[in-house]
């Protein structure tokens, strides 16, 4: 399954619209979409496995906290990830296994995923989210 997303125009920052057949796929696609803006992720080796667990107060905060936790790991460990398996997803907790490789070259720095104009909506075929990143 190829993650589905598109980039939207936003004057200062980076805005992505992300699609998923269910919430788990939406969260995985959002992470893939974010890393595809940072580095070349097609064909990335999966030599590293990390377990990620975040908490939130609702679906929106879980999404922001998940993406920001991945940015933290990316910067502190010097790694890029391209495969995301959501192992657990409840109203206030997310656990995932992510795969990637040491970072060779990155295009840019993403400072953070923000709550600005953040939306997660149910659509006919599943879910669609819009996330604005500060870059």
């Amino acid at each position, binding site marked *: 399954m190829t993650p589905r997303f598109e*980039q939207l*125009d936003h*004057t200062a*920052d980076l805005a992505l619209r992300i699609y998923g057949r269910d919430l788990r796929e939406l969260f995985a696609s959002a992470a893939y979409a974010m890393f595809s803006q940072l580095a070349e992720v097609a064909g990335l080796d999966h030599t590293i496995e990390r377990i990620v667990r975040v908490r939130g107060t609702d679906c929106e905060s879980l999404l922001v*906290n998940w993406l920001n936790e991945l940015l*933290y790991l990316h910067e502190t460990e*010097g790694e890029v990830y391209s495969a995301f398996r959501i192992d657990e997803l409840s109203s206030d907790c997310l656990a995932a296994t992510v795969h990637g490789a040491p970072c060779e070259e990155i*295009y840019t720095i993403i400072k953070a995923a*923000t*709550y600005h104009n953040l939306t997660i909506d149910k659509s006919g075929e599943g879910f669609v989210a819009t996330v604005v990143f500060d870059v």
Partner: protein
Amino acid sequence: MVSKKEFKRLEEYLWEIPQDHRSDMRVPARIYADDALLEAALQDRSIEQLINTACLPGVVKYAVAMPDIHQGYGPPIGGVAAMDVKDGVISPGAVGYDINCGVRLLRSNIEADQLKPLMDELMASLYNQVPSGVGKGGDIRLSGRDMDNVLEKGSAWAVAEGYGTKDDLEHCEERGGLAAAKASAVSTKAKKRGSNQLGTLGAGNHFVEIGEVVEVYDQDTAEQFGIFLGQAVLWVHSGSRGLGHQVCSEYVRKLQSAVVKYGIRLPDRELVCAPVDSPEGREYMAAMAGAANYAWANRQLLMHRARQVLQEVLAPRFKNISFELVYDIAHNIAKVEEFVINGSPTKVVVHRKGATRSFGPGNPVLPEDYREVGQPVLVPGDMGTASYLLVGTNEATEKSFASTCHGAGRVMSRRAATRKMRGEEVRRRLEAQGITVRGPWKGLAEEAPHAYKDIDRVVNVVHKAGLARKVARMVPLGVMKG
């Protein structure tokens, strides 16, 4: 979307959305702009974001936007809001993710013409030796105790470690450190994120630039700042790197519950805040100040490295070359300052997000050598046009909480800029103008001059509106992007 007819034109360059425009506004929203810049601001959601900012508890007088305003997240970039410390809030989103992103300007004792034949060598040396930190760390590793000192002392830590002089500290806003900082308010994760990034430039619009003074508008003030026509100058633009981003992300998350606890209603979740006088508010202030100090230390180290590189290249060719700091200013920060509100002196937290402090003559916090003329205001432009040195005014105290613009302001998204012109083409065009450029292709495409507003127009507005006065105009000779 807001339209132009909803504004009242109060002065030639000042427009206001009255408080009754929306029922949740606590004060009016004001923008300094000419017709064209106001129309540009109306193209995105920046005015709506300014109106949202005017809804925050304890906001006083008006929310103010500078002519370089553009859409951000939460409040707009180019926005200023002051909240009463007694009943107002402090908001991480009104400072931004890159806490104390800022700029410093150095004057040299050499003519730019003498450097022009050496630009390839100078820019290659800077690019090779000033770490960008994009995808990898710098060459300084901080121990736990060092990190706490950086967070609590800022530039003074760097100078004590041998990276610069006491004179550098005199010429920084807040002498390069906020006393409100507490290392304990900065999380272990934020410290880890910052531990190998000190002394690195970062990506986006951050840069090191060699420029030339091409116009002097105010000879006396320029002399006071050590600036002369034809002079070579150096600019450094960077911030608090991953540490600041982590601090902001964490407090945007933490304060989601503070908003519920204190019963604060917000038009945009990214505006989350806490009362200034609350445990949550005090903790954010202490962490934000720590990140601001990290940024000052970072710019001090970047400047020190750049000075060393310039010395290495130039010392064999010229005698007694020097690069001295004119000034360093923050343009993403919140600070407690005092202003007269409704006739009485009031302590407020001034949030400047993409805005520069602009203190006028006589202000006691300015260094002695500038006190008579006012604070240097540094306004860097895009890679291809110009940058300005301005001086603060006392008029700005009343008009904009002593604030002015911070740059040209984006007008085109990074995506649109990249679509319009590839990095290679941007570099070719800049080099055809005589500007030597070093940086990654994607970064160059995103930061192309056509992605920005006309800086001359932006500066003209703040000059004519009295928020700062023009002192000198500079053009780039060589630019290094992170």
